[in-house]
């Protein structure tokens, strides 16, 4: 019972079990953190709003995004992935979500910021429904841990709308 092989086997099994247990505890400690993030998005300008040759509406807009997401970070957080999505409904679709902009926040110090940017990804509708459309801008975040369970949540900001006619 005391050969090198048995000792190595026992040691390795113990080490792996302890490591797994530590990962689980690290993940559970994330639940102790109660986040209180805040965000604000303003649409500064509609750059253009057109109908594509294939027939779908497309809009390009410039946003001013400011947010304080520092309370989302714990010691077990590797990064926070955030993105801004426009959400609206149309006659045919009960829900449309189009991601306009995203970013990766690698550390707590960078989590309080403001940025002015045009939409990174094209805001194209599934049809020609965008004229005069009211939509919500939602800031989603996805907390990716160093190990364990991932958390996601969002802040919904409503009250935005697109012009009635193409620009």
């Amino acid at each position, binding site marked *: 019972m005391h050969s090198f092989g048995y000792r190595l086997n026992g040691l390795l099994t113990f080490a792996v079990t302890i490591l797994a247990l530590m990962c689980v505890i690290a*993940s559970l400690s994330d639940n102790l953190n109660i986040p209180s993030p805040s965000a604000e998005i303003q649409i500064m300008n509609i750059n253009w709003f057109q109908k594509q040759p294939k027939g779908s509406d497309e809009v390009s807009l410039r946003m001013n995004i400011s947010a304080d997401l520092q309370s989302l970070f714990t010691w077990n957080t590797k990064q926070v992935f955030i993105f801004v*999505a426009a959400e609206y409904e149309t006659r045919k679709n*009960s*829900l449309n*979500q189009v*991601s306009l902009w995203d970013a*990766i926040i690698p550390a707590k110090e960078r989590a309080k910021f403001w940025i002015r940017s045009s939409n990174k990804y094209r805001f194209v509708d599934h049809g020609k429904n965008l004229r005069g459309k009211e939509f919500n801008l939602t800031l989603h975040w996805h907390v990716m*841990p160093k190990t*364990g369970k991932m958390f996601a949540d969002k802040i919904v900001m409503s009250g935005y709308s697109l012009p009635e006619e193409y620009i």
Partner: protein
Amino acid sequence: MGWIEENMKSTHIRQIVSQAISLGMVISSALIIWKGLICITGSESPLVVVLSGSMEPGFKRGDILFLYMNKDPIRAGQIVVFNDGRDVPIVHRVIEVHEQRDNKEADILTKGDANLYDDRMLYTPSNRWLQQKYIMGRAVGFLPYVGWLTIIMTDKPIIKYILLGALGLLVITSKE
């Protein structure tokens, strides 16, 4: 040679059979746990290894993802694993969802965090959108680095055979 002869002589049939049975028990309990996980998580493969760097810096090559699947609708921001007929499933984030009012079918667009462009090029040529039926699961948790064992075993199958051979040898020569 003398060592091998000694081993052969001192093992009785009963010992060999009981060792074979305990090996069988280990394999079956591993299978039971695996199939049980498939049932609980609702996904065909509840554990996947990240093979590419398209979700860096969040997921690196060699990380393991835990998947969970239920009937909840797919929403933008979720990290999903999908397979629309390719060899290897892809783990990317949903960036667009268009859900129809009448039948709740949704058109989905995905993109890797580290990629410049969305995945439209990757979908089977006739599709501009991904459908919910191709999605195998949502990533809910992850473990870093553990998946490297699987990657090494796939890239260099000789290591898999060496490991299996060594395990087999251990089972045969253990005197318990």
